[in-house]
């Protein structure tokens, strides 16, 4: 009974907060409503007994949304989101895509037979998850990790206006960079 009530509350929060993201006028509110939606989803994951995944979703989503907020200030410095603004772009296309995806997913859920559980859950789900990721799925995870990291480094290199040859000289011989705002190490 409590489980059901909790499930309903979390599921409703996830959907309503997600929908409200498109109803509010402030970018900050939209960002943190999205976070609320994710937190409710993390709660649902926790309810399935996947403690590690649930808590990690909380951890990652909080950091992610706040980092998103930093970009928001960069582009729009008005504190408290004074100007009301619309959160929609390309309305018609978005409606078409959203409707198609919803119909496809809903149809999938209704049409396809749901799998029946075979076997029992591992005694320690965190341990089982770790073993799966670090044995069977090792290659996938390693490829994913390195690709993501390479993407981050690559985009920073492409975006930076002053590379290390500008900062440290053509032979990289300078003891310290000549940046205006000096970092803590000086490289």
């Amino acid at each position, binding site marked *: 009974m409590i489980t059901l009530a909790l499930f309903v509350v979390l599921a409703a929060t996830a959907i309503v907060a997600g929908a409200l993201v498109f109803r509010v006028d402030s970018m900050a509110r939209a960002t943190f409503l999205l976070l609320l939606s994710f937190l409710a989803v993390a709660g649902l994951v926790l309810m399935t007994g996947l403690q590690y995944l649930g808590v990690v979703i909380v951890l990652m989503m909080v950091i992610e949304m706040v980092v998103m907020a930093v970009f928001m*200030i*960069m*582009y*729009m*410095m*008005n*504190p408290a989101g*004074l*100007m009301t603004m619309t959160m929609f772009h390309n309305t018609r296309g978005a409606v078409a895509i959203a409707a198609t995806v919803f119909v496809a997913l809903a149809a999938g859920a209704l049409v396809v037979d749901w799998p029946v559980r075979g076997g029992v859950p591992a005694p320690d789900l965190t341990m089982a998850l770790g073993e799966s990721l670090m044995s069977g799925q090792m290659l996938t995870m390693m490829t994913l990790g390195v690709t993501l990291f390479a993407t981050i480094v690559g985009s920073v290199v492409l975006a930076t*206006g002053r590379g290390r040859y500008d900062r440290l000289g053509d032979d990289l011989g300078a*003891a*310290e960079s*000549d*940046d*205006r*705002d*000096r970092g*803590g190490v000086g490289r």
Partner: protein
Amino acid sequence: MDLRRALLRAAAARPHVLIIGGLGTDRLRARVEQEVARRGWPVASAPADADVVVVIGRPGPELRAVIDGVWTGVPAPRSQIWITDEDEVSSALDDSVQELADLAAQRAHAPRSGLPAIHTGVFPPEQGHDISEQSGHDEPGEHGHHHHDGGMELPGGLAMADLGEDRDGLALDQLHVPLGPVLPEWPSGLVVDIVLQGDVIQEARSRFLDDVAAVERQPDAARALDSAARVLALSGWEGPAARARGLRDVLLFGGGETVRILEELDDLRRRVRRSRLLRWVLRSAGAGRSEVLEALDDKLLSARAAVAGAGAEAPVATDLPSLDARLVGVEFAAARLIVAVADPLPQPALARPTDQGGAS
């Protein structure tokens, strides 16, 4: 009812004090700061943090407008006192505690239904307009004209941001904000109108509020120590900053022997020079050279020379245009240090020869 009175009295025993003064009130400010420190009262960081607003000297019309704006943002229980003479400092502070603990008076004067937050150092809308127009930042127009090109006036007096290129050439938002005159560790009466992007200053134009004809000057040693204390406090070194202020007070109002002052000054200088972390924090671009740290050391040195009666040259005060030039392109925390070190003086005072030196 009695309980409320008792609570109010207990809460008023250690009020946070916000000191506001115009140009040329430094000596009186030092006296108030000394008395506040002696009582162990903290100095408020912002109007929201203040219980007692101490207005020192006789503020001109521009500063008066700022004080009114600040006052609307001070939460009740609150008290405003005006001090024009060194003799009344102690009794005025006592009166303020009385007023804070007076339930009836606070009830009568408290702003209804919560307080509007005003922006620290930002003028209320009307004054903001007038001043920015006077300073020639904006072409004068009818009242209600947009604050700045493309900008939009919004509720709360903060101008809508507009776009500008950042250091990497990206078009990002800019804000137009006046810094001062009510800011912690800020030179009296100074206002710097800045264009801010993120926390990088893109344009700066500094001015003094209210043209004060004759500016009372502090002795050079006290002035140098005052500025050094600001730099130390902004660097987060509250202890040494308080010690520097204590030395300043001894120089201004007596109460210590020259030998002991010299000893303490040497001790302070040694601590500043020896701290690797301070050097790390203050060091700016260019192979470890630090303008701020060197200037800090110079100030302590010149204070020492003045106390010792060696007839050192007056510390070099920066004029406003060169201060503006140095602020452009720096990050906010660095800008605060630069202003604290520069310790600018209005032009006429710069030209006057310094006749006072050493302890007075």
